[in-house]
């Protein structure tokens, strides 16, 4: 007697619907698990046996049990196979499920020995994969119903125990069961980190008109940003405030981001949807796997993916190991990162803004604009340090800014009332709307993601500006890629100003933003 149930196996963020087949036959009394299971799935036979026996059912003790996870060549990981395996065993042995009860159902959940169901990471991407394959019904651990219900076109059933799942599939009345513990979040970190970041506002930042404008352009077009400046000048203060001037995520974006965080197991059951752009600030001692993704066993998404549609802030980035900085080049260009392993590849989205901050020199006192700095670094060390900042990564940064300590007269200016984040957010949202309308027929949404050829043919600068940009390339002060990036920033400047096509003025601002020259104060005044 063969019985088949379905569940989803995840490979990175990509899910594959797999069949769990159970055959009971003659032979040595044992349970064989085939179809490339990992350690956790191999242990499922112990969990399922105990769960079945302790739920008032009977594990088939007089026959050889063979469990196949098919397609058998796909490596499988995780503990969420338990429910599908247990139900298939019941269907093969003692339970006559109604005809079609197991058709078109995906079962997700880990079993504990007493037959209760535990939460598992990655429910959202699993349900998305099931829906894409035309599966109409999913059974998930009860606390994760909200997460699964984000996917359109799927009926979601939450269960607390194997008995409840059994009754559900039999079409019987659902028996009582104690509630399932929600997956553990990370209250220690979210306690300070998140609540503190909710309170920050650009209103707190005095002066720094130049850097504020750079932030606004970066937010409008989704551009990568490099902030340099002496210690204490306010680089981190500025970077932390970027999410406050980013609009809420739309449905598709929030689904993508929530799917990544579902894989990390960090969703709060009550409010599973992430609608705000994330701000991730890993420390410079973070590991390669932590930032880019990887780890032993399952390939976990890294910080670069958790910052999808938001901000990845790397403070003191020259202190990061050089190979991590180099490895960031690929996701910066393509908006996704592929972690290749011998037996499996995992691809995660990585379409956030990269914000880098660094001191201008190792001691942090050097200032290129004012000459009265107190830097004690030798020129050799300074050059060594600058070499890490520049190079291939710098060519992929759209906007570079020096953040200078605010002079006293600006700090105490009684007339200069700083704008709040809400004011800036209005302009950023407007600029993003213009982009959305312009790129309605394309498959990107932000200037920063527009491919170079499309920009040159379909969305060029005006004639004078195009000539001016070409001159810069011929003169050797910009690479071709650099020119494309300036082109994108020029569009963002134009979107903020409400100009229909970027001209020489916008190009000039974009060039200044890229090459870290101070902005013309007149251009700043014009936008008001």
């Amino acid at each position, binding site marked *: 007697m063969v019985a088949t149930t379905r569940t989803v196996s995840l490979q990175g963020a990509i899910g594959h619907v797999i069949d769990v087949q159970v055959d009971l036959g*003659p032979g*040595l009394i044992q349970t064989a698990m085939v179809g490339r299971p990992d350690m956790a799935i191999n242990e499922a036979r112990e969990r399922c046996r105990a769960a079945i026996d302790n739920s008032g059912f009977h594990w088939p003790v007089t026959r050889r049990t063979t469990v196949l996870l098919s397609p058998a060549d796909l490596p499988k990981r995780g503990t969420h196979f338990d429910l599908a395996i247990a139900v298939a065993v019941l269907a093969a042995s003692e339970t006559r499920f109604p005809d079609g009860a197991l058709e078109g159902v995906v079962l997700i959940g880990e079993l504990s020995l007493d037959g209760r169901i535990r939460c598992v990471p990655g429910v959202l991407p699993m349900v998305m994969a099931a829906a894409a394959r035309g599966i109409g019904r999913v059974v998930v651990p009860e606390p994760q119903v909200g997460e699964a219900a984000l996917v359109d076109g799927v009926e979601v059933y939450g269960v607390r125990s194997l008995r409840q799942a059994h009754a559900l599939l039999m079409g019987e009345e659902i028996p009582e069961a104690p509630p399932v513990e929600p997956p553990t979040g990370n209250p220690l970190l979210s306690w300070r980190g998140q609540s503190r970041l909710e309170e920050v506002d650009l209103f707190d930042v005095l002066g720094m008109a130049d850097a504020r404008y750079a932030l606004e352009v970066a937010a409008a077009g989704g551009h990568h940003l490099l902030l340099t400046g002496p210690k204490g000048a306010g680089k981190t203060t500025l970077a932390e405030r970027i999410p406050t001037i980013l609009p809420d995520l739309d449905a598709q974006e929030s689904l993508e981001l929530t799917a990544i965080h579902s894989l990390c197991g960090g969703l709060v059951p009550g409010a599973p949807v992430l609608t705000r752009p994330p701000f991730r600030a890993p420390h410079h001692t973070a590991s390669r796997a932590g930032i880019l993704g990887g780890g032993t066993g399952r390939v976990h998404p890294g910080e670069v993916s958790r910052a999808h549609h938001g901000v990845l802030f790397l403070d003191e980035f020259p202190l990061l190991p050089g190979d991590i900085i180099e490895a960031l080049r690929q996701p910066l260009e393509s908006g996704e990162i592929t972690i290749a392993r011998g037996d499996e590849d995992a691809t995660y989205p990585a379409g956030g803004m990269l914000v880098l901050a660094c001191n201008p020199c190792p001691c942090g006192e050097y200032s290129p604009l004012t000459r009265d700095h107190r830097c004690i670094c030798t020129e050799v060390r300074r050059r060594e340090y600058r070499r890490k900042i520049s190079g291939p990564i710098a060519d992929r940064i759209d906007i570079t800014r020096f953040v200078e300590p605010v002079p006293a007269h600006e700090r105490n200016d009684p007339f200069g009332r700083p704008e709040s984040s809400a004011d800036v957010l209005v302009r950023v949202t407007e600029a993003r709307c213009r982009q959305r309308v312009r790129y309605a027929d394309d498959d990107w949404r932000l200037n920063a993601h527009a491919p170079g050829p499309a920009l040159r043919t379909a969305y060029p600068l005006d004639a004078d500006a195009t000539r001016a940009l070409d001159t810069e390339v011929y003169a050797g002060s910009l690479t071709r890629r650099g020119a494309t990036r300036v082109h994108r920033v020029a569009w963002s400047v134009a979107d903020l100003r409400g100009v229909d096509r970027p001209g020489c003025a916008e190009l000039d601002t974009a060039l200044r933003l890229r090459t870290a020259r101070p902005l013309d104060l007149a251009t700043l005044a014009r936008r008001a």
Partner: protein
Amino acid sequence: MGGKDQQALGAYGERVAARHLVEQGMVVLDRNWRCPVGELDLVLRDGDVLVFCEVKTRRGEARGHPLQAVDTIKAQRLRRLAALWTDEHQVRVDHVRLDVVGVTAPRRGPATVVHSRGVG
């Protein structure tokens, strides 16, 4: 339960198992064949298949079903015993099978027999 009881239970189980198998149309060739490696409970012929059978008898299922008592190591020993038996009796057959019969014999009521074909 003493050793004697256990032996008696084993012998009873083997009788029950043999009767069950004969009812299935098998022919008993040998019983309780001993050698230094161990003992074969039953040797039978099922059509043109030579069957070596291990019988496990238990009072109840408190310590699991009798069939569960036969693990990979015991199945391997059964295979070795089968080789020794065919060697000694100079038997040449094309098909050999290893079976296990589990007998549950409660103190009251009839014994139940479960026959598992083709072990190991």
